[in-house]
């Protein structure tokens, strides 16, 4: 992408909005938002990627809509307005998934609907879109969705590789002939609790690399 020509649109400040959620201000490991779905859909890479894309789209578009409407929304009923905007987006995404990737939509089951109550979206709407212009809000939505997606992809990559011996459904370990040496898939990794432990390890790695993120209490 040529950032040179679009300098005003991708100014340094906006770029920071895009990149910061990927590391320092990651929605999952730092802001503790959107954990519920992050853990449940990470058994395989494919649903995780679909989920990450869905959340990114919903976050970005609802950020955009709310930011555009922010001066019209009465403060007292803002939560209901936000929920309606989010729910509309989620319905669109859900219908789209049902039409084009039905098997993934079945695997995700209730978690598509739960995007509505995904705290990332509400959190970003409250913290950012209500106080900023539409374009930066849109970028912020994309950035936070991507930061969420990054963790999902990392966790599901390792869970699928260690648990089922495949990557995106492709039997890597079998092709490499690793099973002949007596290696067996670790069934434990597929079970839900391991997702929590993986995220815990990611937090550990992230915070030991950047000491400033360590919590003091």
């Amino acid at each position: 992408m040529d950032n040179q020509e679009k300098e005003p649109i991708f100014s340094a400040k906006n770029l920071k909005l895009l990149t910061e959620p990927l590391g320092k201000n990651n929605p999952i490991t730092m802001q503790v938002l959107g954990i519920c779905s992050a853990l449940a859909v990470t058994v395989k890479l494919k649903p995780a990627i679909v989920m990450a894309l869905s959340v990114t789209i919903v976050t970005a578009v609802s950020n955009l809509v709310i930011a555009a409407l922010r001066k019209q929304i009465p403060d007292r009923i803002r939560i209901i307005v936000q929920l309606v905007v989010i729910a509309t987006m989620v319905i669109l995404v859900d219908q789209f998934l049902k039409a084009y990737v039905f098997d993934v939509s079945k695997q995700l089951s209730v978690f598509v609907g739960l995007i509505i109550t995904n705290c990332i979206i509400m959190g970003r709407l409250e913290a950012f879109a209500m106080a900023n212009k539409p374009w930066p809000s849109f970028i912020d939505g994309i950035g936070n969705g991507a930061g969420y997606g990054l963790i999902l992809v990392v966790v599901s990559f390792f869970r699928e590789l260690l648990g089922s011996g495949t990557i995106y459904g492709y039997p890597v370990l079998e092709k490499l002939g690793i099973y002949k040496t007596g290696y067996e898939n670790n069934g434990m990794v597929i079970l839900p609790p391991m997702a929590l432990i993986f995220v815990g390890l990611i937090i550990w790695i992230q915070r030991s690399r950047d000491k400033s993120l360590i919590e003091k209490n």
Partner: protein
Amino acid sequence: MENLLNIFVKSIFVDNMIFAFFLGMCSFLAVSKSVKTALGLGVAVIFVLLITVPINFLIEKYVLKEGALIWLGESFGDVDLSFLTFMVFIATIAAMVQLVEMVVEKFSPALYNSLGIFLPLIAVNCAILGASLFMQEREYANVVEATVFGVGSGIGWLLAIVGIAAIREKLKYSNVPDPLKGLGITFILTGLMAIAFMGFMGIQL
């Protein structure tokens, strides 16, 4: 009766909202620093589930499902509103939470003081919407079964959050590696508790 007991036990232990589906994780991690507040939030969750799950069940059965509107007349027999599920469920939940808050404030100020701050939080707790969506997916036969499922899920959630809060209180005295402090260790602890809860898997009464 046996069936109801089965649903009850299953929704508390086997299909525990937190340890099997990770629902309500955000508030689970944020409000689990002391047992007292954890207990308050847990009770509020049970309360809201007790009200919203049966209401959503009735809405689903008499309004949203394909052919559910037949009681309005023959010509409504093939209306299918199920695509509106998310919007209607979340609206019901948000409205009910608001209503419960007002009623509790009016009639029981003491209860309001202890639950009050948690009630608005609950509207966006995924465990509440999740319970309604699971209720829809598992197709419970009648409103009693749905209610029992709702209460059971709430009790399961309460057990989980009180458990982790108790552990975190004790954790103050242990020597956790610096980068793991706070969030990191809580994740790993929850993972270990979840493994313990998996021992309940397959229980059938």
